[in-house]
């Protein structure tokens, strides 16, 4: 299993680097252009959540793992996070702004898990399978 690790400062100006780096990994694993766009957006939303909710986190760690049928991406911060399940859920066409990022991550990726430890940060693990 090949892995690629990336650490970025927990600042808005570095999110583009994260999404483009992960897109390069996904391209290397032969995801389609549409799937790469999905992965880019999901990673960016995960990083944005860290920036907006992880008070005190200095950086964001992103791990890309090549798995048998796709790509597993872990995004971890070290701040006092908000569990995504506590972010208000949305209905389609909802005019509220909050919760859009989590909604998109869940929509674009095949599997999403969160692990939140008070004062130890949040770990988001998401998987995208290669289409047949």
């Amino acid at each position, binding site marked *: 299993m090949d892995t690629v690790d990336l650490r970025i400062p927990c600042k*808005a*100006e570095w*999110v*583009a680097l994260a999404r483009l780096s992960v897109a390069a990994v996904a391209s290397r694993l032969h995801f389609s252009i*549409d799937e790469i*766009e999905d992965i*880019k*957006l999901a990673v*960016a*939303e995960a*990083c*944005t959540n860290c*920036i*907006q909710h992880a008070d005190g986190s200095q950086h964001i760690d992103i791990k890309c793992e090549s798995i048998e049928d796709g790509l597993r991406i872990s995004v971890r911060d070290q701040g006092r996070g908000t569990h995504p399940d506590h972010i208000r859920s*949305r*209905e*389609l*066409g*909802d*005019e*509220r*702004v909050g919760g*859009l*990022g989590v*909604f*998109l991550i869940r*929509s*674009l990726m095949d599997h999403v898990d969160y692990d939140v430890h008070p004062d130890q940060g949040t770990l988001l693990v998401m998987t995208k399978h290669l289409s047949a």
Partner: protein
Amino acid sequence: MDIKVNVREAQADCYVVELSGEIDVYTSPKVKDAIGDLIDRGVYNLVIDLEKVRYIDSTGLGVLIGGLKRVREHGGSVNLVCTNPQIRKIFDITGLVKIFGIFENEDSAMKALV
């Protein structure tokens, strides 16, 4: 990565906001400021042209939703120009196609405003 914002008056009280580049957590404040400035000046009918936008995330969507809410308070509206399938997909997934008018070109977006 950056976003370019070009604002122009298309017809009386109707402005076009042309965006070019990528709208994310870093660049969306610039878009928010541009739209907010127009609304503060009393412009409540906007066409936001996303044709040259290569990428948009939830913060960008949030700025558009925020702008729409503000102009609606004054009886105005926001229509979008968007034909990029990837960008359009984000509006479809989130259901925002139900609250924004999304058009293939500026003319049709403008006609639907007035």
